[in-house]
């Protein structure tokens, strides 16, 4: 399958990129890693008249610790995020999740910004960004704006980006000292998009939860961050019984689509199991009250 004809542009600066987007609007598509866009173009599901290649913008890539925040350029490759010592130190949940994206070769090219802009409901980066409350820095011709990931991701494969905007940087809050994390995803084969995924962070005071975040991917149009539900378990004993109750509650809180090959009932089963597993992992070695 060969793509349809397009004109190719490779801007050397952000200004140049933005002016191209302004000029061509919806006739243009930005290409970063190409691991999601190129298959669609090759199958002619996407037929942009203009392709704007961001790969000549090295300033858009890189990982920087800014105090309690991890700032990652939109063109940073998944492989770098998965293996960066800075990411592992500040935000290991992000590194763990990035390491599961696709396959080794895909991670060399695929980018953080590309994954967020693509907004696949089952993808890792949108899930982690939403769960951690990351902020997306967007550049446009009229300047930049910064919005939370949960506001950026609006629906299936849909974001808040205007036709003349691009993602520039994503800022993840660093995990706090003592905060534990777990990422659990399930797909039938290694490297496929997850059928469902669960990201958890937890903090403990003695044997009880003092902080809890739960995010789910693959069960709705956008990642689901169960803030209220999680908050409801703060103060409870971080033991196996609570874990089971949380998993049940989480499974009950979702309303996935019924698809011919994957039923809503199955997704609920899976979410329950993944949530339980993620919580078991973060609660090991928590002192249990007798």
């Amino acid at each position, binding site marked *: 399958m060969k793509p349809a004809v397009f004109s190719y542009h490779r801007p050397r600066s952000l200004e140049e990129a933005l002016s191209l987007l302004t000029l061509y609007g919806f006739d243009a598509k930005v290409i970063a890693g190409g691991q999601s866009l190129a*298959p669609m173009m090759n199958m002619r599901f996407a037929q942009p008249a203009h392709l704007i290649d961001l790969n000549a913008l090295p300033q858009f890539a890189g990982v920087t610790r800014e105090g309690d925040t991890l700032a990652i350029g939109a063109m940073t490759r998944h492989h770098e995020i998965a293996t960066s010592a800075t990411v592992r130190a500040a935000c290991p949940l992000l590194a763990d999740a990035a390491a599961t994206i696709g396959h080794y070769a895909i991670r060399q090219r695929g980018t953080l910004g590309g994954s967020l802009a693509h907004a696949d409901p089952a993808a890792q980066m949108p899930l982690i960004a939403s769960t951690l409350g990351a902020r997306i820095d967007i550049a446009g011709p009229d300047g930049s704006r910064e919005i939370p990931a949960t506001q950026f991701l609006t629906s299936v494969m849909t974001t808040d980006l205007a036709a003349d905007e691009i993602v520039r940087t994503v800022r993840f809050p660093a995990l706090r000292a003592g905060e534990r994390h777990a990422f659990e995803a399930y797909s039938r084969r290694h490297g496929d998009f997850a059928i469902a995924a669960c990201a958890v962070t937890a903090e403990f005071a003695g044997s009880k939860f003092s902080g809890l975040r739960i995010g789910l991917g693959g069960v709705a149009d956008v990642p689901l961050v169960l803030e209220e539900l999680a908050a409801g378990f703060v103060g409870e004993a971080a033991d196996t019984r609570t874990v089971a109750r949380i998993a049940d509650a989480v499974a009950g809180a979702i309303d996935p689509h019924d698809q011919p090959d994957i039923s809503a009932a199955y997704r609920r089963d899976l979410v329950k199991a993944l949530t339980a597993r993620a919580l078991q992992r973060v609660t090991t070695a928590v002192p249990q009250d007798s």
Partner: protein
Amino acid sequence: MSEQAFRYLNKAVPRTEDYRLLTGYGRYLDDIEIAGALHVCFVRSPHAHARIVSVDTTGAVAMPGVVTVVTGRELAQWTTPMRVAPPIEGLVPVEIATMPIETVRFQGDLVACVVATDRYVAEDAAEQVIVEFAPLPVVTDMWQALDADAAQVDPMVPGNLVSHQTYSHGDQQSANRRAFRVIESTFHQQRQTHVPIETRGCAALWDAGRDHLTFHVGTQVPHPLRTQLAARLKLSESQVTVISPDVGGSFGQKIALYREELTVAALARHLKRPVRWREDRLENLTAAANSREDFCRTRAAVDEHGTLLALDLEMREDFGAYCFFPANYLARVVAMVLSGPYRLQDYAFDVKVVLSHKCGNAPMRAPMSITSWVMEGTMDAIARELALDPVEVRRRNLLTPEELPYRTATGELLTDITPSRTFEAVVTALEYRAFRERQQAARAAGRYLGLGLCNVVEPTTYGSRFYKAAGIPGSGHEASWIRIEPSGVVNASVGLGPSGQGYESAMANAVAEGLGVAPSSVRIHLGHTDIAPYGMGSRGARSGTAGGGALYLCALDARRKVLAIAAACLELPDDDSLRMIDARIERRSGDEWTDAGLTLGDVARRAYLDPTSLPEGLTPGLEFHLTYDPPPMTYSNSAHACEIEVDVATGAIRIERYVIAEDCGTLLNPTVVEGQQHGAVAMGLSGALFEHMRYDETGQNVTGSLADYLIVTSAELPNFEIIPLHTPSRATAAGIKGMAEGGVMGALGALTNALNDALAPFGVVADRHPLTPMMLRDLLRNKL
């Protein structure tokens, strides 16, 4: 042929093909540079069933770089239709046009062909061909297909029933009356496709000066394809040369002469320019060939100890819209060998093959793949129903060595197979008793382990007498030639069509063994119809037995002449005291063999350059030709055992261990055999777990990419443990039995049986593939 010590056979050697394939210098179809070649792209139907009202090519033809756009009307002038009408009872003849003119029968069916300067342009132009369709009612279900009001797929096939065969042997009724229980089991195998990593493709060059077509195509059957191609183009066979280059996998898909290939050849002749085609993956998945999609129901009459008294098989297969080969063939093979290694005389079957509005079927590695799953699943059902041990039920019914040769209920003669031996070997290797204890302990801890067993009797090589007896046209023989050159190196050829099985080294071994030279001095030529002798090609698992056998026997002929000439060189009255080892003549005196100071090169020079000095009756040169017709049927056998753990919360299956014990006779190259075992089991597990060619109720194919049609990756497979238990056939050349499909058969059964064993505490049985996590959870939900 009794046990004999081979010098080259049964010894693992690395392959000779590897250097070019590892370094990127293989020569696959697309690697062949053809100056000035045009590229085609087919316009395909978006509808599963429709009348073609009109085809407007004007817009497409006007595009720069487009040479022409043709439809079925042009192809009907340039070619003849395909007639599939073997004189088989219960099989309805069909005729297939090169390209549809009036009606399309599946989503992806051919409508037109664009010829352009490159594929990119051709795809652009294909989008500009405007086709008006009148959609027609669709049938996509093999049960609805036989309803009185179902849409008709092929006007020549009334009621969509293209084949119906029944058979009965013994007295089932009486057996059923005697029986303690009659146990019914069902098996649903899903629609699949071959997915060779290299898709289909071809290139046609028409020599207008010589009136000759050279056709490059990856094929398992170069000569039969050439015969068909010539006939369809109304050319003589001498006007067509088929050349099969390195092939990136086939698994049965690259056998039929496809309509696209014929179209490319016809275009080259008409345009007097080279024309080539590369199928893309979307086409390969949706429009090349599908396979499998069978349903089986068994009714097993048993006594209270689990002895099988009688068996009844009902089978149905969905063949898709077109019969590119006889529809009865595969289903018939399933029914024929169903009883496998078990004692059974009272047996009946009823096999129906129906058409539907889906891509037509082609044989896919182990087209009878469902067989062992059905028989072994039936054995497990008997054990479950009667609360008996599944190993004991099998032991009770397995043929013992003393009972062989055994004439099955369908008239097949089972001989030189060792099913009890392979079965016991896997039972021992899996440490059966210890497993049951582990399984018990695991269940108490909420973990679910399962063990599945599957015995396989694999029909590998069909001889001509089999076809004759079954009324199927065609031959099972294979042809070979060997030429020893004046310098003593050896060229040889056989009519097979390789697609990755390492024939170059395996067949060199066969020649080396028969002749008495090192394999490294033998060069094997394959796939070129002007060079290779007319053979039936590679299919089933016949290449070892028929191809290797032919070369081995031909090499024995060559050796006889060589030794006769050597005797003359050494001024001996006969060659009784001579042998040749690694191209050196040795002479025996007493019990000792000593070098006679004569090489094959010396003998060859005399044969070619000094023929008057040859012994009386021997002609100049050292060139030999031999055809070999193997026995009507040859079998190999194996036993598969699989240990799994099921994650009942998610429905995921993890394979912990997989053991195979196999007897496939003499091995041309054990290295290659092991690779085939791995590949076959992997394909079977992939089919059982992941693959599914799906159509929705309107006939739209919803699995058109490798992201939708899932094949197994390295992360899902275990290491396979192989226990070789080879015993030679007494009826074939060099005792070769052949293999390569049994692994698929064994995997389907072993995995499914393991799953059902794991789920036994829940009282559920999985009877359909793929064994998806969703399906497992559906079975288990509300039972946990």
